[in-house]
């Protein structure tokens, strides 16, 4: 059963349960995102991952020059962290424990995946492709939302005590 839950007795830690099919999808998405960022940086979907830091074009060009490489590396590293975490698990449905820090690559990766899917959807491909992209985006949103809810519960609980 897919889901995210707090770990009793371990404050700040959540447990992510994934089915085998989801592990495969995440692996493939991590591979594709890395490939997009490293091999096709001018693809419109890759560009969607690097928003402008300034409205002014000259200031933006300067900002981009100083930040793009670092931002791109961070995104590739996040995809790599997900692939590694999945590799450490068995073939069947898996359980992955994440604390606030280790959850970040998952959260940012899922956002990046959805940004890429949104860019692809806006390009208007064949209907069957679009329905797959929309379904993937909904699933990534569900997973990210479940992670955020579980993490918020543990961190808010920690702040109150």
């Amino acid at each position, binding site marked *: 059963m897919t889901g995210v839950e707090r770990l009793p007795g371990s404050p700040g830690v959540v447990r992510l349960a994934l089915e085998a099919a989801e592990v495969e999808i995440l692996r493939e998405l991590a591979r594709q995102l890395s490939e997009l960022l490293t091999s096709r940086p001018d693809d419109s979907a890759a560009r969607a991952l690097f928003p402008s830091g300034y409205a002014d074009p000259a200031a933006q060009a300067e*900002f981009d020059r100083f930040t793009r490489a670092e931002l791109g590396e961070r995104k590739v590293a996040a995809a790599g962290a997900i692939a590694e975490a999945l590799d450490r698990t068995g073939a069947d449905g898996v359980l992955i424990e994440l604390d606030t820090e280790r959850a970040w690559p998952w959260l940012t990766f899922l*956002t990046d995946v959805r940004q890429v899917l949104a860019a692809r959807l806006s390009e208007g491909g064949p209907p069957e492709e679009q329905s797959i992209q929309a379904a993937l985006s909904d699933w990534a*949103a569900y997973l990210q*939302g479940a992670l955020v809810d579980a993490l918020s519960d543990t961190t808010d609980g920690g702040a109150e005590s």
Partner: protein
Amino acid sequence: MPHETPLLDIELESLDAIVRLVPWQTVVWDDPVNLMSYVTYVFQQYFGFPRDKAEQLMMRVHTEGSAVVATGNREAMERHVLAMHGYGLNATVRRADDAAS
């Protein structure tokens, strides 16, 4: 009391310093992708805002299209904007007196 030094006497150097006194802002913009709960979580975790403040700012982004989440010197705001981009949020740096643009 009359000013002993007319304003126009200010040297160019100090003028430059005054211009630099105008703070910069980190503005987060609404986007169709990010979940409201995720944006709130980022504001809480990165800026250390309490949940209610983070939620208010997120709602401002959502309903008004943008919100100023930090004010300060330019370098600090650029770091914030880069961090926001790292989280996948849409954010820009602007001078506080450019708010209308």
